[in-house]
Every structure is written in C-alpha cells, then in structure tokens.
C-alpha cells in the first residue's frame, strides 16, 4: 500500500513538475485572493493584520479546491481512470498517494502564501513550531477529506460546482481550528493553539481511514 502510494504521489508530482499548473495558476490565484482581501478590507485600518490567520486559511481553502480539481482532472482524460483501475494498484494506496501529492503541493503553496501575508499585510510571524505543526495537520486534513470528496464528485458533469458544496461545510472545523491555532501562535500564547491541533489530528485520521476503506468502491464504479 505504501509503495503504491509513493508511486501515485510520485506520478502526480512529476506531472505537476512538467506541467506546472499549480505553480503557474493555483499559486497566482492564491496571491490574487490575498490582494482582493486588501481591496475589500481597507488595508490602512489594521483589519488585515488582525484578520491575517482567517484570510490566510480562506485563501488556502480556495486554492486547495483548485488543486483537488486538478488532481482528479489529470485522471479524467484519455481513460486514465480505467488505466488506474486496471493497474492493479491498491485503491487505498492510490488514495494515500493522491493525498500526499496534494499535501506536498499545498505545503509549498502555504509557505509562499505565508511570505506573501508577512510582506503584504505586515503581519509579525511568531510561534514557528505551532505554525508549522498546524500547517502540516491542517493540510493533511484538507487533502484527506478533499481527496475522498473529490473522487465522489469525479466523473460527473457537475463536478466543479459540486465539490465546493460538499467539501467546504465538512472542512469548517479545519478552518476554525487552523485559524484559532494561527491566532494563538501569532498572539504569543501557543498553549491555546495545541487543542485545535489535536482536533484537526482526529479529523485527519478519520478521513484517512474513511478514504482507505471508501476509495476502492468509489473508484470502481465511477
């Protein structure tokens, strides 16, 4: 299962390295969202600095939707899904591989977005450990739930509109948790942030388990 997962993750990341869709389209989109927030909320009133954690994670969520759509779009053409099914790879491995590839892309995006927030919103960055752990756990949560709901929406004519409706309510706890944990870290009171990391860890584990068992049947019939 792990070997299959690494194979799939490697394939997806190689595709990304060669096509650079995430780099050339998703990342600029995320930065664009940051700039749009500045237009919407007057940048001189320090609202931006206060709301940095929330805005940051909203930008990540929207970008994650695009990254997830992309992750399944590359399987949609030329009967790739059938090829995946015929490949004999463990469906749980395919799921984990997709989660890993999306997580890796999102982590790079989050790092760059963090620089963007620090520069554009002049937010002070503190509490590095909590920030890093929160990012990893939240990203795993988003990728795991997103991949499961992504395959639910895959292969349907309405997939672009369906995925946000299904996924965003489910990810509400992750948005709350990651935002609160970031706030705690930036305010210099990291002890308030760790319970949220715990909650998101439970969320991520639940969805990894659900995906490992549910991905196979869903891949079969789509």
């Amino acid at each position, binding site marked *: 299962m792990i070997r299959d997962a690494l194979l799939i993750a490697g394939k997806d990341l190689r595709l990304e390295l060669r096509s650079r869709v995430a780099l050339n389209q998703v990342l600029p989109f995320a930065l664009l969202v940051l700039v749009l927030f500045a237009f919407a909320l007057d940048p001189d009133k320090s609202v931006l600095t206060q709301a940095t954690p929330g805005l940051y994670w909203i930008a990540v969520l929207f970008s994650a939707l695009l990254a997830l759509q992309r992750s399944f779009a590359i399987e949609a053409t030329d009967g790739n899904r059938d090829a995946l099914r015929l490949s004999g790879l463990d469906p749980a491995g395919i799921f984990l591989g997709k989660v890993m590839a999306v997580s890796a892309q999102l982590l790079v995006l989050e790092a760059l977005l963090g620089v963007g927030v620090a520069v554009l919103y002049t937010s002070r960055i503190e509490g590095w450990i909590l920030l890093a752990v929160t990012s990893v756990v939240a990203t795993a949560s988003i990728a795991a739930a997103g991949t*499961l709901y992504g395959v639910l929406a895959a292969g349907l004519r309405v997939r672009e509109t369906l995925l946000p*409706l*299904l996924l965003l*309510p489910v990810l*509400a*706890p992750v948005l*709350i948790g990651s935002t*609160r944990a970031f706030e705690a870290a930036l305010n210099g009171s990291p002890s308030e942030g760790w319970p949220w990391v715990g909650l998101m860890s439970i969320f991520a584990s*639940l969805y990894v388990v659900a995906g490992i068992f*549910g991905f196979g049947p869903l891949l079969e019939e789509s």
Partner: protein
Amino acid sequence: MTTQLDAAPEGLDSTGSRGTRVLGVLAIVGLAALALFGLVLSPPDASQGEVVRILYVHVPSATFAYIGCFLTTIGSAMFLWRRSAWWELVAYASAEIATVFTAIVLVTGMIWGRPTWGVFWVWDARLTSTAMLLLLLLGYLAVRRLPADHDVRTKRSAIIGLLLVPNVIIVRQSVQWWRTLHQKPTLLANGVGAKIEGLMLFSLFIGFIAIGLVFAWLLIHRFRLAWLEDQLDDAGLDAAIAERRSEGEPS
C-alpha cells in the same frame, strides 16, 4: 411517457394506504391539539412572554431533524453493508425530511430570537452548527439527485450519508469549542434549559407527539414516492430498450 404511469397496477395511484390515512388523521388531530395547547391554553412565559409558544414547534422539530440525520446515516451504512435498496430509500427520504425540519428549526429559531435577543442571528454554537447541518444535508441531497446513473447516485450519496453524523459531531464540537473559548453560551441558559412545568411542559409534550406523527407520515409517503420514482426509472429504461430493439427488427 404518461402511459407508464397509467399502466401502474391498481392501488399504486397514490402513496396512501389505510395505515397512513389513520396516521395522517392522527397527525392533523395532534397539530390541532398543539395549536390549542400552544396558542390558547398554555400561559405566556414569565420572562419570554408570548414568544415562548414558538418553542412548542421549535424544540420537537429540532429533535426530529436529528432523528432524521441518524436514520440517514444508519440507512446509508445498511445500504453499503447489505446492498439493501430499502435502507437506501429510508436514508434518502429521511434526509429530505430532516432538511425541511432543520430549515423549520432555523426559521422558527430566528423568529424567536428576534424578540428575545433582539437579533435574528447570534454566532452561538447551537445556531452555527445547525446551519452547518443544513448545508451538509443539502450536499447529500445534491448528490442523491444528480442527473447520473442510479448506481452512481446511490453509492456516492450513501458515502456522504454515512459520514453525515460523524461530520455533524465534529462540526458541533469544533463550533462549541470555538464559541466557548471566546464567550460562555449564556444566551440559551434562560431559554430551553430553564425549568418548565405544568401546562407548558404538557404543551411541549403534545408538540413532540404531533411533530413526531407528522415526521412519520412524511417519511412513509416520501419513502413510497422514492420507491415509485425508482420503479418508473427502471420501467422507462426497459421501455426505451424494448423500443430500440423493436426498431432493429424487420417488420
């Protein structure tokens, strides 16, 4: 395709049966009793005044909305486990009714909140998680009603239905945590949790029975309707196949 409908066997022209008619009459009687006790006989609340009467509908609706969600998750689990079409339809029917009841809960809650708290909406844990519940249910229904293959729709919506209650629990937990870290949920302390007795308690009791009867009645009818819809789908497909086959045959 009206011929398909006309060709339905005798007795299938309505989703009613003797049992459901009795149930329907009981539900109407229950609602009348609820109106009588809730609006006329029960006294106004000491602190909330006349507004308290909304709660005789609000609280039972919330309870049955939750029951509907549990039925959806159980039905989805049974469908995935046993491939039981019966349970799949139970899940679908109860999800739809739970959606309606959740909407009723939100609307009556807002009507109650405006005079009591002065605002329609507060970011209270309960309100927020109920709103999220409505969105999760709408997601389930969106998938169940997809213009796609029957197998695709049922299997995918069953996975969402299976995750419905776990999701609601996580969302509820996180929202509760989120709000209580900032402020104590004092708003509802003098609301539902307050002591109620006498005629008011009895009215609430009537409310549970009446809303429960309505829930059961709706569930049975929705289930039968969904079953007929599936039959019609199959019949329509069979007819289309037969038509294409006969085209190919030399006449």
